[in-house]
């Protein structure tokens, strides 16, 4: 029988205490599948000590691409890294009594037990029932595709089915005209986990706050990815509820019951740009006209009829046509700078590679770097807020993606196991 696997003797471990952030001192034990991994990352970024309990095979997200090329064929998953940076990893064989016992001891030390219930259902979905005996004070945060109590509970799920059911896919894609492509196109990413994860963490932090002030007892917090997406598509639901109109897809623009002027324009350097004509008030239009006029590209827009806001709105497709011809002859960066100088809310459609050298993001200290033995030099996106300390400010902590079972020894020592006990667990391959 084996209970704990991995290579706890070989890889240097990370420190457990002294993490910087508003959740410093909070212990999160993360278990189960993958849908709550982003929630775990958010908790870790805010300073919580997040101990990720994996199976001996590791989280399924270790098997999803893209992969670090230098690490060899499918050895180092970047999606796993992005979702699990800041965490510690311990791999337990939960089919063994030793492994189960270690899980019980870990949960016993937790303030929050974060459980993902998806294709993987830890302890046949009975973890919550055991918590009473294991740790009656811990917050149980459950993240699942459809929720615990739901006609669709336990339904099969993937990211694409989630964004189809949740509403994102239906409003994204190209203009629904005969010459366009009628298929909806779901934006790439893990949006169901992002939306569900951030709401789950709001619930957890709110619950921690309530305990802080009201000495409330144990509570469970539960979020379904499907629910999270369903309320996060801006106009689509209210449009039906209040106007009995369904919205239709428009290329890179708000889906709506009526058409809207195209605002994605191609620039001379081959880049697309968002030339947003929303809120085109008198001041903005005067700026636009002045700019186009100064380069002899105003076409007929100086016609007095365009001074009237209603006429402008009605003829916006024509105005955008003139703007499109203007942009086609110029560099996107040059347009961006001049538009913003004139306080027009335009921006180039950047790609990820370009962001890495973006002076603004670099100036704000957005990126986090780590030098991982397995991955190589990794650059992560950091936190999307300033003004509150985050774990990345912790001295002496590295932010390498946790290798499977990497932190087993440190975690077991923290649990108070003796050297003999740790050795015997390793020998039994329980960790």
């Amino acid at each position, binding site marked *: 029988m084996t209970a704990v696997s991995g290579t706890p003797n070989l890889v240097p471990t990370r420190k457990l205490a002294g993490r910087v952030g508003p959740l410093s001192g909070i212990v999160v034990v993360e278990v189960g599948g993958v849908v709550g991994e982003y929630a775990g990352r958010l908790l870790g970024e805010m300073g919580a000590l997040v101990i990720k309990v994996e199976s001996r095979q590791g989280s399924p997200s270790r098997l999803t691409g893209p992969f670090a090329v230098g690490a060899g064929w499918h050895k180092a998953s970047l999606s796993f890294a992005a979702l699990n940076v800041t965490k510690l990893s311990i791999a337990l064989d939960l089919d063994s009594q030793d492994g189960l016992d270690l899980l019980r001891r870990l949960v016993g030390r937790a303030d929050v037990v974060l459980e993902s219930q998806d294709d993987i259902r830890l302890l046949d979905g009975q973890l919550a029932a055991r918590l009473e005996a294991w740790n009656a004070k811990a917050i149980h945060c459950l993240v699942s595709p459809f929720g615990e109590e739901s006609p669709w509970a336990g339904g099969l799920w993937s990211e694409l089915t989630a964004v189809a059911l949740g509403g994102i896919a239906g409003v994204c894609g190209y203009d629904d005209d005969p010459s366009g492509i009628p298929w909806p196109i779901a934006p790439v990413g893990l949006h169901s986990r992002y939306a569900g994860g951030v709401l789950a963490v709001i619930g957890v932090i709110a619950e921690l706050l309530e305990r802080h002030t009201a000495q409330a007892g144990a509570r469970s917090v539960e979020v379904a990815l499907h629910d999270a997406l369903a309320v996060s598509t801006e106009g689509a639901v209210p449009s039906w509820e209040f106007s009995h109109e369904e919205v239709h897809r428009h290329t890179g623009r708000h889906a709506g019951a009526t058409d809207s002027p195209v605002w994605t324009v191609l620039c001379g350097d081959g880049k697309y740009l968002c030339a947003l004509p929303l809120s085109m008030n008198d001041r903005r239009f005067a700026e636009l006209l002045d700019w186009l006029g100064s380069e002899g590209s105003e076409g007929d827009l100086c016609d007095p009829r365009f001074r009237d806001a209603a006429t402008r709105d009605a003829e916006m497709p024509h105005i955008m046509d003139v703007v499109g011809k203007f942009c086609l002859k110029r560099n996107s960066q040059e347009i961006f700078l001049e538009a913003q100088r004139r306080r027009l809310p335009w921006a180039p459609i950047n790609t990820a590679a370009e962001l890495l050298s973006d002076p603004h993001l670099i100036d704000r200290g957005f990126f986090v770097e780590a030098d991982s033995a397995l991955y190589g030099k990794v*650059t992560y996106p950091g936190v999307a807020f300033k003004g509150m300390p985050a774990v990345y400010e912790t001295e002496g902590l590295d932010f390498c993606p946790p290798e499977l079972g990497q932190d087993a020894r440190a975690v077991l020592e923290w649990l108070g196991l003796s050297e003999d006990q740790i050795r015997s667990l390793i020998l039994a391959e329980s960790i």
Partner: protein
Amino acid sequence: MGFAPLAGTRVLDFSWNVAGPTATKVLAALGADVVKVEWPTRADPGRALAFSPFQEGVFDSSGFFSTVNIGKRSFTVDPTSAAGHHIVDELLGHCDIVVESYSPRVMSGWGWTFQRMLELNPNIIYLSVSGFGHTGPESAYVSYGPTAQAASGVTAASGEPDQPPAGWGYSYLDVMTGYQAALVTVAARSRQLDGHAGQRLDVSQVEVGAAMLGPILMDCGLNGTVTHEALFPPGNRAQWPESTVDGYRYELGAPYNLFPTNDPGHDGFCAITVLNESEWQALKAAMGKPDWAEDERFADLDRRLANQNELDMRLGEWTRLFGKYELMALLQAAGVRAGALQTGRDRLDRDPALASRQVFQRLNHDVLGEHRFESLPVHVDGKPLELYPRWPILGKDTETVLAELGESADQIAELAKSGGIWPPDIARPIYTKETTS
């Protein structure tokens, strides 16, 4: 209300449009007293947004605005007048959290720098929500949701080859930034109760977007992938043989797409994703093992990936025999990951999961009457959070809030007379009491 960890927390809310108000909607749903501050001549533009059954000029008839601003009170004051400036000073002294989503120079232009706020209230939390953030070389830039989406990289990464990016059909970053901002604000409130002095939170939409690009950014940095020249898998595919990037849907399988059904209209699709061999066998069985599916071109994942156009076309011929929900049920029962493409109406009227979990809550709005509103879909102790049925009817709570500040009835009457709480040249709407919660 039940779970209300922010009960007693006072939020002064200058935010407008969608991102900031989404954050304060979350705070209100957690029990905070959110007072939305506006002046009728430059009220929240969201009040004029769509889905209004009433004529123009009414401030409180937008269904969309009412969805994003549920749970808040409304206070009218002109911050640019001397009297109004004084009242805002008082309010800042009296609140725990102040929120705004203007472009970065507005609040400080009115005189309320963070330093000034600290003088008025040493423990204050000041949250700004903006496109580019309040520091850095682009901090002065103006932005709406689509601007930030373009700049952040989340617009670029999907679409068809040789077409502009398909992008987002709404201001996704308004919604997600609202959630992120609420999250850090609740954490900051906890620190405030621990005695932490003034906090200045700066949330940038571009960073919220860029953070969600995680693995893609890392792929570019580590592997040198050049995304602007990359050939992405077309449409909804997880992978494509000629692609120069590795998926980015973080799942691998074929078929993996949205498929047409016999439901009419432009939304009659069902997502089908086959992520392993046993699911492929299950799909074939569900189709009755047609000859085409046994063709060796579809025998394993690599060959299905290589022949995806043919595969999707063949499968699409079969899926067209069913309605989208019928197909979803049939495939789910057979062990295949499938989900109907749902519109707004579908989610409201045809989705048993959302209905059973009370994700949309039916409430009686002061002006609009009974409607379903999007909740904060977090269940605590097995129960959904219930929205507080209150909306910021423009100016409705001004006098009440002034009284809470300690202003006497005479002072309030004097202020009203001098046009300090409502501009004299605009009619102040009066709504009947019986529709008012």
